[in-house]
């Protein structure tokens, strides 16, 4: 039955691995069986009875429906949901409510790797990051470092700190919380202990990151030390995680002292492990039927989703260097007079500055993105206000361009054009019917289109100044964008036809 889940489950894990805040999940999965054994070993139980067959079948029916829906709608996250219900069905079939009660911590731990739908976790992390920046700003004031915070950016007299990167430690929030829950279950602490440990862990991660920002800013301002990049940045991140976990362990001892909670372990009666071993009963016909149904469904899902969710094939070494002269613009070395920089958020990114007369613009290329990337989110995080977004329809085979007008207090005015092309060099198009998608058939088609699409790369041109562009300058900037976009797409096509094949 687990085999039937595996193709969709694998796709889910690959997606989860691409999210920095969930990179802890393999360790959590590895720990789950041990927690299960601890739960069974330490739960006193004389005998257990299998759960009612009707309820067991209900668990499996939900698991099957989730698997089928995941395959039909190309929803990878349905695989862990299905697996969870399937495991719950197994537990119920073997030991009914008593065994399920003994193993509830395992169920909770498994749910921790399931991101909430709608990417609410991302929204919470963004909010935490902005709160961390605001708190760091106040603390910098208190220690006498002049600062001006806006969005996830802290300006200090000597530099501009992109705290979005510096504060990546906030990503460890989920990992620390997950391991805190794991610790509580492992040590068989009472459930109420979580009410102390989880908020404490969240506070530790948050304030550790605030202090990290403060230390990095102060080091830059006072000693011109860059702690925001390279190995130092990575080591700081690891150190923060270790410190936070150590503090959680310490808090557990503190809680034990204050609240006198005891580990739940009664060795006077036989453990649930013995009870399971003694009363394990299998109805071969039922289990084979259920397994066959799952295997058949799994095969159908595998067939339907074959080729979906392609991994990016553009390697880090892929060079998309743009020419020195582009539509009358000339590439210049990075100019520290440029008041702002382009926001790039892909795993690979390249920036280049071009000048034409008084106009200075930045071209940014970054990839991969799995599905449409909304660049306004990145700019919003960096403290920009999105004044307007215009969706320009493509001309011929050209890119579908987005024009964004940006404002950042106090004076900066930005003009940004961007478009996305896939790894074959084809420009991304918004599906015509997406805007008013209705009806199951249409949704199924759109979900298939999205899942089957190649990963995308983004190209953008950004100009920032203190005054809006006049019409002639607007046209120059658009020319630069189209020249850069054409060059980039042709290079991607060449790469796809050659090295990428």
């Amino acid at each position: 039955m687990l085999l039937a889940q595996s193709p969709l489950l694998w796709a889910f894990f690959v997606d989860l691995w691409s999210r920095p805040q969930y990179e802890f999940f393999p360790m959590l999965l590895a720990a789950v069986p041990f927690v299960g054994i601890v739960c069974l070993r330490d739960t006193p139980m004389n005998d257990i009875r299998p759960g009612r067959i009707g309820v067991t079948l209900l668990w499996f029916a939900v698991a099957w429906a989730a698997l089928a829906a995941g395959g039909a709608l190309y929803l990878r996250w349905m695989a862990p949901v299905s697996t969870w219900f399937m495991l719950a069905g197994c537990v119920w079939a073997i030991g009914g409510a008593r065994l399920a009660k003994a193993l509830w911590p395992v169920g909770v731990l498994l749910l921790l790797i399931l991101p909430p739908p709608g990417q609410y976790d991302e929204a919470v992390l963004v909010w935490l990051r902005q709160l961390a920046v605001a708190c760091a700003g106040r603390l910098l004031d208190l220690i006498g470092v002049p600062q001006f915070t806006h969005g996830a950016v802290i300006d200090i007299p000597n530099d501009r700190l992109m705290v979005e990167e510096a504060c990546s430690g906030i990503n460890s929030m989920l990992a620390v919380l997950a391991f805190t829950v794991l610790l509580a279950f492992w040590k068989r602490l009472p459930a109420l202990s979580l009410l102390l440990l989880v908020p404490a862990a969240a506070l530790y991660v948050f304030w550790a990151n605030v202090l990290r920002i403060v230390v990095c800013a102060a080091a830059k301002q006072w000693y011109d030390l860059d702690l925001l990049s390279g190995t130092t940045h990575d080591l700081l991140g690891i150190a923060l995680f270790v410190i936070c976990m150590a503090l959680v362990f310490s808090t557990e001892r503190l809680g034990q002292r204050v609240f006198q909670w005891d580990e739940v372990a009664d060795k006077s009666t036989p453990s649930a492990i013995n009870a399971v071993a003694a009363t394990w009963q299998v109805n071969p016909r039922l289990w084979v039927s259920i397994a066959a149904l799952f295997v058949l469904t799994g095969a159908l899902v595998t067939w339907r989703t074959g080729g979906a969710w392609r991994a990016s094939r553009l390697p880090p070494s892929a060079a998309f260097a743009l020419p020195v002269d582009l539509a009358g613009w000339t590439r210049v070395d990075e100019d520290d007079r440029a008041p702002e920089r382009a926001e790039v958020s892909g795993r690979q990114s390249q920036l280049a500055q071009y000048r034409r007369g008084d106009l200075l613009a930045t071209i940014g290329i970054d990839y991969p993105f799995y599905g449409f990337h909304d660049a306004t989110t990145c700019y919003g995080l960096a403290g920009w206000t999105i004044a307007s977004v215009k969706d320009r329809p493509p001309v011929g085979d050209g890119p579908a361009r987005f024009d964004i007008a940006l404002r950042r207090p106090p004076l900066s005015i930005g003009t940004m054009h961007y478009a996305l092309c896939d790894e074959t060099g084809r420009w991304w198009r918004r599906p015509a019917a997406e805007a008013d998608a209705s009806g199951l058939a249409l949704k199924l088609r759109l979900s298939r289109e999205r899942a089957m699409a190649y990963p995308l790369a983004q190209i953008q041109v950004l100009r920032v100044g203190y005054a809006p562009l006049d019409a002639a300058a607007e046209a120059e900037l658009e020319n630069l964008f189209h020249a850069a976009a054409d060059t980039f797409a042709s290079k991607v096509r060449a790469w796809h036809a050659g090295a990428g094949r």
Partner: protein
Amino acid sequence: MTRIICESADARPARWPMVPAGVALAAIATMTLSVVLAGATPDVTTLRSKAEQAVARKDDRTAALHYRHLLALQPQQPAHAFALAEAIDRTGRRGEAMAVLGTIAPISGDGYAPAHLRQAEWLVEARVLRGASDAATLTAARAHATAAARDDKTRSAANGLLDILGEAPAGSGP
């Protein structure tokens, strides 16, 4: 009896493992209180005072940062933009300083008179000292000087510039 007492003494958990958590929680409480007391937005008077102190000790980068902050808090105050432009200029970025002045004193219309005057001065300086003899520089310098001459506080200096530029000063006509 003796055995029981020894056991209970041994079973008493060591205190040191809980010390880091206690210290951390106390530190967090202190920092939270500090941040809350500091308020959501900085005090404008304090910020202005810090900016002026930075100007006095010729720390123009810090001054520019504070004026930028002030301008974000009070965008309708042209004096902040003017002070920001001057601080930026003193760090050697006159082009950016001109652009900042342009936001409060555009060449096309009325604006903050001191900003018009300063732009005119810089453009005349570019023309006289660096030989910028193009028509655009001259036109811009005249426009800014003329705009500055409309304000009582800057009229005298603006008329002086118009003299240099070979224009009839404002109010000196027949």
